């Protein structure tokens, strides 16, 4: 059948696309299931709001006690400032500070699996810390709440905004799932920045190796010019972006810190091509530690990027 220039032919062809209607009991069953799902989602959200309210009250109480203590011990002068001691000299403005960098909780959501191994995979141990990464004291997470785009316009699960929303507990609501195969997410830092470290959580609930992890930076949003590759573990160039010298790695809830040595760019693009469990690509959170280029004045001192300790492991 061909579609000639009248409306009836379009109507006829569209008629061929019609499907037999779904069973009424299926329709009703699914409708009821959706209502239950919505109620569950709203309940979880209400619990989260209550939890944050409790946290806020507790934080306010701790702050009030701290201010009171400072007033008592400093005679009302310099309230709120740390009390100087011999071991810890007074802190002045501009002095290096620790970067606030937290970890999600460890999860044991799945059947424990053997640690993935292979000739291209780094040896993994839950007890081994990642090597320390040092960043300037003034560096901060520039990616937080910045614009994110992706190669998959309709993610299977989640929304691209979640990549920089600060939520990284690895709950279902924190996860972005992109289509199978080679995919990327891209973060616009808003302005060119000296990037010192990028921290990536692909997946939190279990150990995983993601294939062809490639991290690039550029000042060109389309990544056509001025592209610098800061990490590439595509050892066989199966993704066609060039062969990488870096090793594949087993990722757990601690994510992965990539040192980038102050490379200057506005955009960060992170590639992957499935993982050892399935062909999809996932992101829980990405943090980019750096300083806006225009804010740089002189060579800032370096401090270690501190990672908070996770809760003790359960057997």
């Amino acid at each position, binding site marked *: 059948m061909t579609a000639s220039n009248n409306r009836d032919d379009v109507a006829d062809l569209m008629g061929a696309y019609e499907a*037999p209607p779904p069973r009424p009991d299926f329709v009703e069953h699914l409708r009821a299931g959706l209502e239950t799902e919505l109620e569950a989602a709203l309940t979880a959200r209400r619990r989260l709001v209550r939890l944050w309210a409790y946290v806020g009250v507790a934080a306010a109480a701790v702050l009030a006690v701290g201010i009171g203590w400072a007033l008592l011990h400093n005679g009302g002068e310099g309230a709120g400032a740390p009390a100087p001691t011999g071991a810890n000299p007074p802190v002045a403005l501009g002095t290096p500070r620790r970067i606030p960098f937290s970890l999600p909780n460890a999860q044991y959501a799945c059947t424990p699996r053997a640690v993935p191994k292979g000739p291209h995979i780094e040896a993994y141990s839950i007890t081994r810390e990642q090597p320390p990464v040092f960043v300037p004291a003034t560096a901060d997470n520039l990616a937080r709440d910045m614009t994110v785009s992706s190669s998959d316009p*309709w993610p299977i699960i989640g929304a691209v905004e979640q990549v920089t929303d600060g939520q990284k507990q690895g709950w279902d609501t924190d996860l972005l799932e992109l289509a199978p195969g080679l995919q990327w997410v891209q973060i616009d830092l808003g302005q060119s920045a000296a990037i010192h470290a990028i921290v990536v959580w692909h997946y939190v609930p279990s150990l995983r190796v993601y294939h062809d992890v490639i991290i690039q930076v550029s000042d060109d949003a389309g990544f056509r010019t001025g592209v610098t590759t800061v990490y590439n573990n595509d050892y066989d160039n199966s993704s066609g972006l060039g062969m990488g010298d870096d090793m594949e790695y087993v990722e757990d809830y601690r994510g992965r810190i990539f040192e980038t040595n102050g490379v200057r760019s506005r955009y960060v693009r992170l590639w992957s091509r499935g993982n050892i469990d399935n062909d999809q690509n996932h992101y829980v959170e990405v943090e980019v530690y750096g300083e806006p280029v225009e804010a740089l004045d002189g060579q800032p001192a370096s401090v270690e990027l501190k990672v908070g300790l996770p809760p003790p492991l359960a057997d």
Partner: protein
Amino acid sequence: MTVGPTDGRPAEPLGTEACGLVTDADLIRAVQAGNAAALAVLYRRHLPAVWRFAFARLRGDTATVEDVVSETFLAAVRRIDRLRPEGGSLAGWLIGIARHKIGDVHRRRARVRSGGAAEAQTESVTAKDAGDPAAPLEAAETRTRVAEVLDALPEDQRMALEWKYLDKLSVRDIAHRLGRTEKAAETILYRARKAFRETYDRRDTR
């Protein structure tokens, strides 16, 4: 229970078929606020398109179509709080989820390597003309080709055609669903028909 449009139009009851005047953005806001009636309207509104989409690509394997459609709507409800009401086509988003769910099905089947039987059995059952042995095949081929043509169209054109010719909606209702004026909806329909014919004929002559 009512859902309040945000453009000054009066709120309307979420009755059985009165929901044509409520935009998707209105519905998303209401669902995000916990309105179960709005969820039911949203579901009723978009179920046909998602069902047809899955049915055409799974060749009438009804059991799998039900699985895919269920997973699609459940995933959508779980993510509804993250959805921006004005952030794009809700129908397109749902179809996108369904597309990926279907991709998962195909991948699973490829791994099992036992497919074929399930796909072949169902299309023959759904064929209208049981007397003509070639009819099921032709119907399946036409459906597949129309599905490919629809996939090639912009999302608003695709939905306008489905709503017009399969769901039998008026231009006014289509305009409301698209969040556009009636004139704009007519233009979209005109362009959709034109693009549909051209794309279909181009594929037909290959």
